[in-house]
């Protein structure tokens, strides 16, 4: 028997999402600080062993969690390094959910991937475009070029044209879920793109042009728009340090972001999280789970889970080295943290203030015994132009979003000092 004390907590979670990490890439992008390894460090055999381990953990997980997962996300690295068959097997084992996303790099995307949607195994794809400028793609160390990115848009157009027939749904066909229950999920096919802005050599017009390519070539309903962040330990960091690449000023970044945010707004996108924009009901349900500290369990190297033991938030983080992950016992987590109230509160601030919905007064009151008055008092040191207060929440506006990290710090100190 495997002793995993947290498994028995899983059925107590109000709901549970699943993240599966695929730590493999063909090449590592220069800005990437995530745990992943390029193709010089792995081969087909590694992937096979890694997937075996994932499947075993998944089996054990499902033995202990009897419901379907709320949402599912397969991220990386680049899950596109898996064959469609491998991806399919994984998605089948995972089972149905209200939203099942896989991440993929444009150059890995093939027409075969369409079948995953036809069968209802996947419902959403998130594609890392970053830019349509070949020079910039080179600077970023991306594997794709403009041509690959345009092909990815073509793929999405095909997704839009797919005629989804519920009788083809793998999970219904195999009696894993009843058709009525599945239909009640309101599942729809969605896609999203990652785009970077304020990149070296880029001007505002270049960023606008990237967005225009997207909206002119597909029916864009969800976009993740980032500013390049240069993180320590990355190749890009060394380039900036050696002055081979110039980092943009905060004024330049602010200017770009303001303009792009404004542009997306005029195009009808809802700025629902600092870096995420959606039309209508196309928000990413899975990511919203992170931003509300809802429970999720993660499989794979370096992945982190959030579960609750009554009122306590437990953070589990897997070992990051994939060989050690393959060798380790099932659910042999590298690190377990039970957050104290202040840490829990800090995490709530960190995720919630990124959301357009902001801090919920009821939540603060129930979980931390912090009154609405106390929260508004903590906000009194923040310029009133940066936030708004409604009956049930306090949230940042666009100007406040730009200063998110500073504001979180101030509010955290303000709320800590209450105690």
């Amino acid at each position, binding site marked *: 028997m495997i002793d995993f004390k947290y498994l028995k907590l899983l059925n107590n979670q109000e709901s549970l999402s699943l993240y599966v990490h695929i730590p493999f890439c063909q090449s590592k992008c220069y800005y990437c600080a995530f745990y992943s390894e390029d193709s010089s460090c792995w081969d087909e055999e590694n992937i096979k062993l890694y997937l075996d381990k994932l499947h075993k953990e998944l089996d054990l997980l499902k033995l202990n969690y009897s419901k379907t997962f709320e949402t599912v996300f397969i991220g990386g690295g680049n899950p596109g390094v898996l064959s469609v068959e491998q991806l399919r097997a994984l998605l089948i084992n995972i089972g149905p959910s209200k939203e099942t996303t896989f991440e993929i790099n444009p150059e890995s995307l093939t027409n075969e991937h369409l079948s995953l949607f036809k069968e209802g195994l996947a419902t959403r794809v998130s594609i890392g475009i970053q830019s349509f400028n070949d020079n910039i793609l080179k600077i970023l160390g991306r594997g794709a070029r403009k041509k690959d990115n345009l092909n990815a848009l073509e793929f999405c157009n095909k997704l839009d044209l797919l005629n989804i027939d519920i009788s083809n749904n793998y999970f219904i066909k195999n009696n894993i879920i009843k058709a009525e229950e599945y239909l009640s999920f309101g599942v729809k096919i969605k896609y999203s793109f990652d785009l970077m802005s304020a990149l070296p050599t880029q001007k505002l017009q270049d960023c606008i042009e990237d967005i225009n390519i997207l909206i002119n070539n597909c029916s864009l309903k969800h976009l993740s728009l980032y500013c390049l962040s240069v993180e320590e330990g990355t190749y890009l960091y060394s380039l900036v340090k050696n002055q081979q690449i110039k980092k943009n000023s*905060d004024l330049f970044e602010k200017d770009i972001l303001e303009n792009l945010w404004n542009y997306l707004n005029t195009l009808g996108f809802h700025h629902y999280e*600092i870096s995420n924009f959606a039309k209508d009901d196309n928000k990413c349900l899975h990511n919203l789970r992170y931003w509300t500290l809802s429970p999720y369990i993660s499989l794979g190297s370096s992945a982190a889970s959030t579960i609750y033991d009554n009122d306590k938030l437990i953070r589990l983080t897997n070992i990051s080295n994939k060989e050690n992950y393959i060798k380790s016992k099932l659910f042999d987590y590298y690190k377990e943290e039970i957050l104290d109230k202040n840490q829990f509160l800090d995490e709530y601030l960190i995720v919630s203030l990124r959301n357009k919905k902001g801090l919920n007064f009821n939540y603060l009151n129930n979980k931390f015994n912090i009154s609405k008055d106390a929260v508004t008092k903590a906000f009194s040191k923040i310029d009133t132009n940066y936030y708004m207060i409604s009956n049930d929440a306090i949230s940042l506006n666009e100007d406040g979003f730009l200063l*998110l990290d*500073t504001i979180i710090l101030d509010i955290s100190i303000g709320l800590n000092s209450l105690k």
Partner: protein
Amino acid sequence: MAHDYSLTRNFCIIAHIDHGKSTLADRFIEMAKLGNTRGPAQDQVLDNMDIERERGITIKSQAVTIPYTAKDGKTYTLNLVDTPGHVDFSYEVSRAISSCEGALLLVDASQGVEAQTLANLYLAMEHNLEVIPVINKVDLPSANIPMCLEMIDNDLGLDPDMSVQVSAKTGFGVDELFEQIVDFIPPPQGIDEDPLKAVIFDSHYDAYRGIIVHCRVFDGCLKKGETIRFMHGGVDFIVEEVGIFQLGYIKTEVLHAGDVGYFIAGIKKIGDIRVGDTVTKLSNLAKEPLEGFKDVQPVVFSSIYPVDANDYEELFDAIERLKLNDASLVYEKDSSAALGFGFRCGFLGLLHLEVIQERIEREFNLSIVFTSPSVEYKVHLKKDNEVVEIDNPLEYPDQVLVDYSEEPFIKANVITPSEYIGPIMSLAMEKRGVQTNMNYLDSKRVELQYEMPLAEVLFEFYDRLKSISRGYASFDYEVIGYRRTDLVRLDILVNGDQVDALSQLVFRGNAVQRGKIVCQRLKGEIHKQQYKIAIQAAIGGQIVSRETITAYRKDVTAKCYGGDISRKRKLLEKQKEGKKRMKMVGSVEIPQQAFLAVLKSDDTSN
């Protein structure tokens, strides 16, 4: 049995900073085969403190006894009293000098005689010391011995034939110097049977033995078990131990008339010991104390605050312990709206202040903020002709209540190569100096005398003097009294809130310029925040200078998904820690560095 004084010589070394005094003292000890025990890394044996070694200056008087077998076959006891080498400590120097019969006057072979050398020579002469001129660093290629000999003759009025040429670094000429000491410096005179008269020239605190008093016995003798009285202090103690210095303490039976040594007497309060006080015996009181006692008064004042308010107790501890070794440091409790609780301290001068600052930070590992240094003003109020002494800007009364103010003036003595006279005169003028004398020492060197406010010297006068004279001008001063001045309080406002710790009392004519500099400095040190920050300097509510720090434009990390949350929380925890080290003024955070930058005073010359 009568004590034989003929084999004792008490002498000191007087020199300008960097003329090699400590190196020479080292060499003495080594030549006397005493220095074998010293650690290889510590070059200068007598400079006990790290900071003394680093700055190449001696802050505290030190003494050492060197046995020396001369050419006449007799073994002499040479007592070297090493004196502090900076103007801030001129009183300590005078006490050390008064403990000796002779002085070695050190002249740098390349640089010749400097102002401080002259000042110390006069001191030595006042005390009737035999002075032996010593030309040091003769091994340097830039050495100019004929120039030095001429200076010794002309400037110092000493016999150049008596001078000895040495290299303290290589040891060249040191033997000859020993012989000269034995031959020329007279043995001490004094009678063991007379009432005890010993002068205290220093004291220090030893963690195991308590306070150790350094003294020179002039008359009488001192033994364990005897009850002594400090004549100026009026307090009595029982002697527990007497002895001499030999890179440590060598316990002896008795300190005889003429000896330089130490005693331990269970003294608990450093305040009971005053440098220059006369020690006598209760059983046979001296009729009167030795001449020359002066109660040293601090002339520079500043407040010290811990950066982290929780360190207040530790800071108190640190200051108390420094005080044990440094009777000239005075302090009282102070508080500031911006900086919390701290201490108002008085110092002998700016160097003394810097030494204390560095010692608190280094030896006690505390982050501290010093407020702008100030002198003590006499403020005459309109009401009842009352006069208040104020060194703390926060205590300065409303200007309408003030009739007039007075500030301390000094006599400044500058010796410079003649080509720098122009710029030095403009500097002195800018610093409100009035020239009282100008004297060509020879065809190339000029001695300039000024009367100027002490407050002006606190603001980088010395550094600018060094920079405009390329290091050749030397400077020396003494306080000569109070004179009428036009004083105002300069306040610094950050987003409209007064930063009390940055207020300064300044001469009205300097206030605008000073305000401008402070604003610029703060602008360079305060980080961008959410708001635009206005930094203003004001005199009595009128803004005289302004700088603006633009607000943060963007401060947001783009991504935060499942695996990032812990990492971001840990970063947030670190940032919160960092914020603790900032001082809040209204809604603006001011880093410790900003206070230090303002303290560093003006550098308009750059």
